[in-house]
């Protein structure tokens, strides 16, 4: 008590110039970095998107022509379709599977440390190694997956060689990395006060009811966070199709970033690639806003009740 009294005397109500100056010095690397490597480039890519530029020769003003080109580029629509489809299927699947494992691990079960390690490990592995390994695992004639299917008498497809199976194969593979999300759900689940469950029990709630009316609302902000993070990650998938399928077969795994990469670094169409990047940026921004808009209906924040 005495100490805090002393501090209150010394703590100035107005901001100290010296403290502010120090703060600005400490954040100055970040500010410079933001201007040079994030904020500046974002604006620059908008400007570049109105030009034709191969880097070597000076850029030429092109107006909106890059955006018009996009409308007649079937690969743009294909890559948008592939990536959106992947996001729509893989992200919810990752959430359901990750949350399911986290719930199992949150039951005061024995060996939880071992299970947690096993499920988390694949998520930290370098993606290039994972892609190389899974190209073999998904092999039609010698792969692990088709061996597993053969145990049930199913003759597995050529996962990476048939257009209708390549994207599902990459989605399946992405579930191997579900441990990262699982860990976040587990942290969220362990933060739910036990009184809530006891109160629910007193009110006669069974396991399902306490999941539905305690666990799910309490974990919903984490699910929202994972939904947004997962969506943004889905639009940055690159190494898997680049190494495993090269976007094929028949462009069935032509992810957006792969299409953009080819335009920028294989065809050196920097203007067109910048236009692609801005359209993607807007697309993600709109999707994220929509998710937040509709999240009010299902995401529950503890603070809301306190304020009532």
């Amino acid at each position, binding site marked *: 008590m005495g*100490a805090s009294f002393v501090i209150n005397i*010394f703590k100035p109500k107005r*901001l100290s110039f010296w403290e*502010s100056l*120090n*703060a*600005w010095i*400490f*954040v100055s*690397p*970040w500010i410079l*970095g*933001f201007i*040079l*490597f*994030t904020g*500046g*480039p*974002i604006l620059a*890519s908008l400007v570049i998107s109105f030009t034709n530029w191969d*880097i070597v020769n000076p850029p030429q003003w092109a107006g909106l022509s890059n955006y018009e080109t996009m409308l007649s580029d079937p690969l743009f629509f294909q890559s948008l379709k592939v990536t959106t489809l992947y996001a729509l299927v893989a992200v919810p699947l990752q959430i359901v599977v990750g949350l399911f*494992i986290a719930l*199992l691990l949150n*039951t005061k*079960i024995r060996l939880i440390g071992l*299970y947690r*390690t*096993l*499920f*988390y490990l694949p998520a*930290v592995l*370098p*993606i*290039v*190694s994972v892609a*190389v*390994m899974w190209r*073999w*695992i998904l092999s039609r004639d*010698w792969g*692990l997956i088709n061996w*597993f299917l053969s145990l049930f008498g199913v003759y597995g497809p050529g996962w990476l060689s048939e257009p209708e199976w390549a994207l599902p194969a990459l989605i399946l593979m992405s579930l191997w990395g579900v441990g990262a999300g699982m*860990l*976040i759900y587990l*942290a969220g689940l362990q933060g739910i006060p036990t009184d809530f469950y006891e109160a629910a029990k007193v009110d006669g709630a069974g*396991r399902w009811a306490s999941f539905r009316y305690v666990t799910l609302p309490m974990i919903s902000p984490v699910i929202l966070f994972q939904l*947004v993070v997962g969506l943004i990650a889905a639009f*940055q998938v*690159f*190494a898997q199709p680049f*190494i495993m399928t090269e976007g094929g077969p028949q462009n069935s795994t032509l992810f957006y*970033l792969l299409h953009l990469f080819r335009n920028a*670094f294989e065809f050196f169409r920097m203007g067109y*690639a*910048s236009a692609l*990047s801005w359209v*993607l*940026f807007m697309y*993600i921004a709109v999707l*994220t806003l929509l998710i937040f808009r509709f999240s009010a209906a299902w995401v529950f924040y503890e603070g809301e009740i306190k304020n009532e």
Partner: protein
Amino acid sequence: MAAIAQRPVSNNWAAKAREVDWVKVLAHIVLIAGSVVFLMPFVYVVSTSLKTAGDVYTFPPEFIPDPVQWANYPDALTAMPFDVFFFNTIFLALGRIIGLTLSCSLAGFAFAKLRWKGRNTLFFIVLLTLMIPVEVTLIPRYILFSKLGWVGSFAPLLVPGFFAENAFFVFLFRQFFMTMGQDLIDAARIDGCSFIGLFRRIIAPNAKPVFAVVAIYIIQNNWNSFLLPMIYLTDRSKYTLALGLRLFNEQYYSQTHLLMAASVFVVIPIVILFFFMQRYFIQGVVFTGSKG
């Protein structure tokens, strides 16, 4: 002991049966099955990496190689300069650890513990940048670095690290510093400690866990990183492990046993790091969630 053994067995069984929590039993069954599913790809890949070229293509697959072909590892690793790739990867990781921990921790300190105008606005921008996809900055950054003549060198991968390019780490440091008591800081200030002294002598020494978490994340990210190194590192002598493995994948496409050995080699350092530092991997998640 004898007395216990002579207790009526049937009663004991009945008592046990009532105690059995079927949900837990079911959870264990599902978890064991899940663990097997998650482990199988490793088992399959490691077993392939130890087979002779002729034994690889069998169906159903043999999970235990016979004979065990250890030579695949030296064969694969000497087919390309993996030692150079390894040192390049370590060098980049160390450079990024120095740059990012310095710049991000100082920014996190200013956001968490100093009072200044503009703090909330700037921190909001930090959070916004978390959501910016790599695509949007990719091309202008490349043009910038190519005009500077840096393409082909490590600079485009190292220099941004000294400018706190990772907003998530700024956030992580800030969240951790927020939880540190204000009393100690105010006491140091009263004793005439400068702000940088405060950071060096009080904040940083008491925040070793978060520095460890960030360092480990950087190593892991750096091992994982593929697109940016591929764009900037044009010369093979500067390749990282990820780039080397991709090259190996192209040239030894059909020699699955060597390919698997190479990819296991690239994975092993991260697996070792994970097993010894698992605590920090997991703590990173917990820090993010702390209120502030």
